[in-house]
């Protein structure tokens, strides 16, 4: 490759990030510092470029942190943050508990069934996400499939729809592939002779699993957990469709602020805070990776 081309290849990701992350982020950040007004567009101030530098200065002077102060003062927002993080964390733990055995089981299979099982993990993607979540409504509603099955077994019906449990169920269902695939990727790359070496040196198969397989799969655990936790914390569709009015998640708050209240600055501020809350732990993880992750 010619040097110029190599340089271009190196610059391309940054251009991409600039266009699709940095610029939108700055726009949203600017929006979050504005005030909500009854107008079109529904926020102020606007930059008046006809006044040149004075216009820009006046615009910058009008920006303030008022919206953020509101976020801190109104406990509704704090509650929504905490409940989002709690639901995402619960979902992530359950996903790990379910996803790890699935991924491990798939790596232990003969190549034929292994492909079939991997396919089965990916297959739900071929159906619309919305339709799959609607299907859960049909399963969980009071006269739904679940209660019909419980009734047939002579058990009491349960009311899951519009509860937090339904949201967690939906999250776990929807994000399972994002947990299984990174775990499968690390587990399948693991050198089989390491397990044999552990057993050869006196570790029972169970001990070999806990002392070798699990520590070496931690990068996959971290990847899967981040891949699930981050979007789950901002998830909108699942809590909206499966959760009740008492399940407050940030995705829903942003939606309400933006569409129902037409308060674009508040919606932007919530989004920015969410982004920062999620970015900080990732950056910490990047900067000081535990030794096993290297």
């Amino acid at each position: 490759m010619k040097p110029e081309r190599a340089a271009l290849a190196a610059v391309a990701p940054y251009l991409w990030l600039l266009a699709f992350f940095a610029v939108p982020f700055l726009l949203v950040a600017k929006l979050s510092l504005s005030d909500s007004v009854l107008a079109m567009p529904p926020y102020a101030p606007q930059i008046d470029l006809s006044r040149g530098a004075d216009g820009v200065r006046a615009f910058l002077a009008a920006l303030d942190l008022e919206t953020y102060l509101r976020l801190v003062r109104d406990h509704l927002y704090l509650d929504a943050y905490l409940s989002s993080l709690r639901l995402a964390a619960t979902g992530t733990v359950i996903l790990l508990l379910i996803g790890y055995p699935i991924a491990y089981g798939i790596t232990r299979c003969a190549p034929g069934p292994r492909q079939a099982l991997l396919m089965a993990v990916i297959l739900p993607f071929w159906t619309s996400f919305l339709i799959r979540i609607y299907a859960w409504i049909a399963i969980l509603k009071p006269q739904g499939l679940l209660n019909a099955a419980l009734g047939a077994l002579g058990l009491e019906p349960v009311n899951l729809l519009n509860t937090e449990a339904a949201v967690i169920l939906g999250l776990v269902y929807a994000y399972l592939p994002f947990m299984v695939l990174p775990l499968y990727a690390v587990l399948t790359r693991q050198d089989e002779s390491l397990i044999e070496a552990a057993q050869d040196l006196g570790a029972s198969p169970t001990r070999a699993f806990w002392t070798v397989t699990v520590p070496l799969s931690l990068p996959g655990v971290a990847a899967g957990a981040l891949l699930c936790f981050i979007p789950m914390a901002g998830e909108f569709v699942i809590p909206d469709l499966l959760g009740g009015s008492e399940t407050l998640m940030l995705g829903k708050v942003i939606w309400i602020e933006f569409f129902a209240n037409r308060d674009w600055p508040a919606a932007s501020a919530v989004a920015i805070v969410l982004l920062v809350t999620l970015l900080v732990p990732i950056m910490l993880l990047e900067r000081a990776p535990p030794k096993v992750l290297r």
Partner: protein
Amino acid sequence: MTGRLQIGAIRSSFAPWEDPLLKPLVRFEAVSKRFGETAAVSEVSLAIYEGEFFALLGPSGCGKTTLMRMLAGFETPDAGRILLDGEDIAPLPPHRRPVHMMFQSYALFPHLTVAQNVAFGLKQRGDPKAEIDARVDEMLGLVKLAGLGRRRPDQLSGGQRQRVALARAIAPSPRILLLDEPLAALDRKLREETRVELMALQQTLGMTFVIVTHDQDEAMVLADRIAVMRDGEVAQVGRPAEIYEAPADRYVAGFVGDVNLFEARLDSVDGGRVRLASPEGRFEADDDDPPEVGATAWLAVRPEKMRLTVEPPPEGPNRLSGRISDIGYLGDWTTYGVEIAPGRVIRAARANAARRVEAPLGWDDQVWLAFAPDAAVVLKR
């Protein structure tokens, strides 16, 4: 000792396999193993003795690794038994066998330090921490890695990783140490040094070593005895000198070292002296257990036992003439290819005993080859 000649140049007093009263440490009894359609190991019987350095030698796919993995417990025999100290070890899973293995890939745990790697087997056994620490230090000293205990495997050179793998496998003092191609990943110089160290280590520890290798030099240098394997079967077991100087068949003769083979018909047997005839000439060889007269046999002569001369040797058997078709100068040795008939090249080798030579040989020179009756081996198959 005078009179009766011995095979090989080395005198060794260590020969437990010659003692009929001694029980072997490991005994394979008609062990077979199939993988699908292919028989990896068929009906192998072997005895390995306490303190022995035993080599399983053969090309890839000959079953040597499968045989070793059955001893470690990673494969189970389909038929036959493996006895350790006279007891069938079939019911023991790998982690209960007093047999440790040094893996070809070394299989060092990348998430553990060198010291933690070496301590792994001791920890599984539940040794007290102080004892483990002392043993780890001792082992690292033994393999000349003292002070590197806190490194991680990826911070070590290939040779150092090899030593860690060795230290880890011997730390819990197994009854048998299995070495799967232990030197294959090292470059030549390091390989030769490590060979010497391995031998010294085995002497110091008095441990039974079983090595799997495809490298005949490695097996010859290291082992007390070698089992040459072919297609899942043991072709011959013996001391390196026996394998080399008295091969059981053409396969063994050709696998270990270079060899010239002459297909011939057995003409007569006179005492220990056998006379053979072939289109390439008349031959005489010494053999205590010759084939029947009239049978086809193969005469095997090693290149270094061929005498290469410009002057014709005295009239008689065991002489050939031809034209030098290739010369390979190796420093310590020079090898020659002598074409005795179109397309038929006989190998000869000469030690470069002198720095300066009066009449050096060159390509296309007409030369004579001759060998003593004692230098040739008569092979029945």
